[in-house]
């Protein structure tokens, strides 16, 4: 049988659409469509709010290290947080840009699927880049906040304890990555935990890369 014969068979196929048509009408009756529109708008608004928060964070941290520029450890911590804040702005702005490119979903299939895969890949990388430093930041952020609010320099009073916690943070970062690699590929009941493991072990990144390769191959061949 040739494809053209199949085309004829396909054209003759009687679609029983009554149920599906009712489904379309019901969507409007239930106002689900308006809900769908506002959900998308809110995700863009949320991204904009995130950028505003990061900007506020960077401004605060910059004023902190400028004020304490004569105290080496506070200057270094302030600068590290400043870099982290800039990474946060870069991540949010890029995500907003990538989201705006897929917002309408009306680009040609290959273009949109590539953009979606790029957005997914970027989200994974930025989650790792912004997430793992919290092994250290959980201590450094309160330290800066305390110094700013009360003028008490925690580092000066308990440098040894802070360094010990930084060492634990370094070990924790390594352990997280090692554990994710060990657990990768094993079935995990919680979908959330599964996603974290896949992201941290690099499995998700490999999948997105495969998707991008598939698209490129489809275009090329």
């Amino acid at each position, binding site marked *: 049988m040739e*494809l053209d014969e199949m085309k004829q068979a396909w054209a003759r196929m009687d679609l029983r659409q009554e149920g599906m048509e009712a489904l379309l009408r019901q969507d409007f009756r239930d106002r689900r469509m308006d809900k769908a529109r506002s959900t998308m708008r809110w995700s863009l608004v949320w991204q904009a709010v995130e950028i505003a928060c990061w900007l506020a964070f960077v401004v605060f941290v910059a004023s902190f290290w400028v004020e304490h520029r004569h105290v080496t450890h506070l200057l270094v911590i302030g600068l590290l947080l400043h870099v982290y804040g800039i990474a946060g702005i870069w991540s949010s702005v890029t995500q907003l840009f990538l989201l705006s490119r897929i917002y309408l979903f*009306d680009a040609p299939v290959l273009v949109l699927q590539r953009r979606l895969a790029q957005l997914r890949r970027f989200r994974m990388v930025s989650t790792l880049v912004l997430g793992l430093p919290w092994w250290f930041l959980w201590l450094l952020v309160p330290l800066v906040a305390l110094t700013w609010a009360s003028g008490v320099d925690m580092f000066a009073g308990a440098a040894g304890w802070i360094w010990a916690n930084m060492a634990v943070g370094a070990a924790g970062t390594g352990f997280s990555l090692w554990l994710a690699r060990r657990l990768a590929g094993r079935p995990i009941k919680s979908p959330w935990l599964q996603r974290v493991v896949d992201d941290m072990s690099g499995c998700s990144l490999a999948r997105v890369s495969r998707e991008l390769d598939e698209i490129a191959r489809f275009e090329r061949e």
Partner: protein
Amino acid sequence: MTARQHQQRFESSLHEHRRIVFKVAGLYSRSAADRDDLVQEISAQLWRSFGGYDPARAKFSTWMYRIALNVAISQARRERWSESDRFEPLAAHHLETIGGGEPVAEQDERLGALYAFIGRLDELNRALILLYLEDRSYTEMAEILGLSETNVATKISRIKQKLREQMTAAETTGA
């Protein structure tokens, strides 16, 4: 245009081209329930995007195919992710997803063969074959998929060749 008129215009355009939504949803879902979900998902995305539709840039059907296929392929990929990279091929029971619950294999055994063939294709090739079966021109297929017309023609000719080989092999083995 008031919001009510805008919605009415959308509803009437959607009604006129509803077959596109049903065919795409049928080809990318594994059960009637999946298909209904996909129909809703596609119509919701069409409504979201309708404000940005520009008739000067594309025909309504082209615009609608793009969105329907993008939603269906994205959903199929999401499911594949959650099921460890498994993109389930279409099988006999999938016939009911496009036929609305009635087994269509009895109507035409060629449809069964067609589904078996389509079932072995990945998401992107599935989109290509759907557009071909829907008798879209190469120009429109190229616009919908984002390929050149030459590329579309080459791909269709390859798919035809592949189908011929599979049919010959099936006849040889008596399958």
